[in-house]
């Protein structure tokens, strides 16, 4: 039995079905990230786990107890919200004490728990301040403090870093991860940011249009996307997609994108001559060749990150991105030859969007 089990969960608001038959198991101490585009139902699923919404169909078990109809307070969970949801009329200390006071925990114990959480989260200098007197990062830490003092069975995070600037987001990402490592808490974390998902998760659940598309570790999903959606959603910059027809020549198969572009395909996958397919090449797998290839492109944009350079080039009406060494001497307008290892190419069926394997 898993620690948290979601069985056949569906949820409708009036006639709109926002979750469709969700089945998901989350193990104890696991950091599970629900990721997907806006409106895919991930926050609704989190609210159902929290007890803030009830499923239309299905049930959920937490620690071997059916909690489907229980109110949030009877589930022993803690949640961190996107807008922090701190009580504006209470000081940092009172915010953190709030849940414990409702649980009628003895005063001395409340003090000990709050002081310990404040120490972990480095909030000690701010305990007498009100939320409006804190920065975004500090508020987020108070929200986490409010969650950890209660020693909950389950931590829920609803896009907690969305309101922070990029630098702070990276910092808080590390803090949340190290907090999870320290507390060994079971965590369900919702985000639309695939980098957050990749960097933080033990398990990623990719969702789209109210359904779970694929579940796995970050690398499993990155290396083995189930379909076009997962392949496009994970990875930054986005995977390059090209459509063309399969051609065989001398026992080798290639993709004919247009009369100038021919890309070799993996031999182990049997494809019918003339079949229309979509291929996906990660920017990291697309190399700039010193030798001439059948895969020529014109450089249109160069993006330097400091560690590497993203070369955007036009191939017919498509723009492809290749991640290259930053020292490569290139300028916009240059004609370059591209190459890729056929084994690193993903093949997809244009009709079903599913991945074509063996």
């Amino acid at each position: 039995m898993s620690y948290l089990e979601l069985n056949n969960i569906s949820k409708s608001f009036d006639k709109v079905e926002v979750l469709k038959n969700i089945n998901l198991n989350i193990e104890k101490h696991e950091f599970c990230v629900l990721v997907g585009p806006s409106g895919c139902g991930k926050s609704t699923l989190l609210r159902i786990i929290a007890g803030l919404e009830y499923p239309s169909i299905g049930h959920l078990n937490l620690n071997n107890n059916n909690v489907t109809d229980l109110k949030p307070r009877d589930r022993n969970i803690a949640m961190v919200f996107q807008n922090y949801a701190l009580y504006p009329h209470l000081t940092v200390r009172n915010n953190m004490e709030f849940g414990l006071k409702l649980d009628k925990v003895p005063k001395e114990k409340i003090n000990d728990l709050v002081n310990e959480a404040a120490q972990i989260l480095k909030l000690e200098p701010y305990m007498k301040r009100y939320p409006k007197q804190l920065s975004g990062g500090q508020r987020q830490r108070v929200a986490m403090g409010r969650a950890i003092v209660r020693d909950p069975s389950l931590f829920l995070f609803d896009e907690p870093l969305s309101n922070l600037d990029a630098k702070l987001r990276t910092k808080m990402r590390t803090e949340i991860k190290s907090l999870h490592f320290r507390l060994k808490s079971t965590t369900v974390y919702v985000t639309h940011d695939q980098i957050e998902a990749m960097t933080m998760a033990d398990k990623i659940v990719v969702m789209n249009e109210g359904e779970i598309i694929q579940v796995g570790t970050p690398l499993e999903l990155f290396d083995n996307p189930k379909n076009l959606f997962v392949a496009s959603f994970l990875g930054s910059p986005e995977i390059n997609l090209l459509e063309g027809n399969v051609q065989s020549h001398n026992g080798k198969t290639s993709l004919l994108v247009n009369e100038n572009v021919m890309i070799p395909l993996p031999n182990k996958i049997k494809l019918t001559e003339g079949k229309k397919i979509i291929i996906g090449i990660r920017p990291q797998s697309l190399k700039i060749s010193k030798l001439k290839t059948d895969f020529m492109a014109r450089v249109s944009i160069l993006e330097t990150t400091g560690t590497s350079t993203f070369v955007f080039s036009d191939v017919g009406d498509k723009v492809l991105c290749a991640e290259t060494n930053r020292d490569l001497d290139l300028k916009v307008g240059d004609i370059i030859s591209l190459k890729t290892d056929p084994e690193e190419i993903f093949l997809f069926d244009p009709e079903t969007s599913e991945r074509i394997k063996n």
Partner: protein
Amino acid sequence: MYSLKQNKLLLLCLCLPAIFIVAFFIVYPILNGVYMSFTNASPLRPTTKLVGFENYRYLFQDDVYWQVLGNTIFIIGTATVIAMLVSLGLALLLNNAIRFSGLYRSLIFQTWVVPWIVIAILWGWLFNTDYGLVNGTLTHYGIIEKEIDWLFNGKAAQWSIILCFAWRSIPFLMVIMLAALQGVPNEVIDAAEVDGAGYWQKTFKVTLPLIQNISLAAALMQAVRMFQEMTLPFVLTEGGPMNSTMVLSMYSYNLAFDSWDFALAATVGTLWLIMLVAFGALYLKTVVREV
């Protein structure tokens, strides 16, 4: 970027109409009222002269003034508290998305658009000793044996006026409180629920503190509005019986236009102004919390 602040003359010219209107219609009457309180101004006197604090001395020694002041504070204070509690209850009900809440809100707000004089006449009929609905209902259900002279018995008249004032204030306070309730972020309420709060704990520990400032500011505005209002006691009881429903606004009106003592009426007004300003400042300082 061009800033108006750089062209001070133009800025002054643009502000002049507003300054003129405020000065002419607000500042001048107030200052004139304060000045009059130090004179013996009356249309019955051929000349007006300064009399120093004579009017103030007279008022402080006048039992009727103290009775009227006490009445005003009691009637308006009690009416405000009752109106606040009822409005809060209604706002909480309507905020909980009960069915037809929009319809109820509109119906309750209708009271706000009815003129004071109409309300006074309406309540006059309701409280009528012989034919009024209040006595009729109470006797019908056996709650009282004999009709009560609602408007002709000291205490009953005060409570009748309080009820009318409160009734008239409910729509305004309810709409403000409902707007404040709808402004409370859902996430904060959700957070309280996750923290283990039930409905009443959410209401008393989170929602009410968050709407406290707006509600109390609205209550202050409404109380000030009631201080100015004399239609209800004027029509219903004419301040009686034995001045038990005489409020400051009506008292100063009577002094000015019954006794033709403009100076004394201005003195009442000045004291009233000082009292309200002091009360308002103290009230905002003490009850409005930092959020």
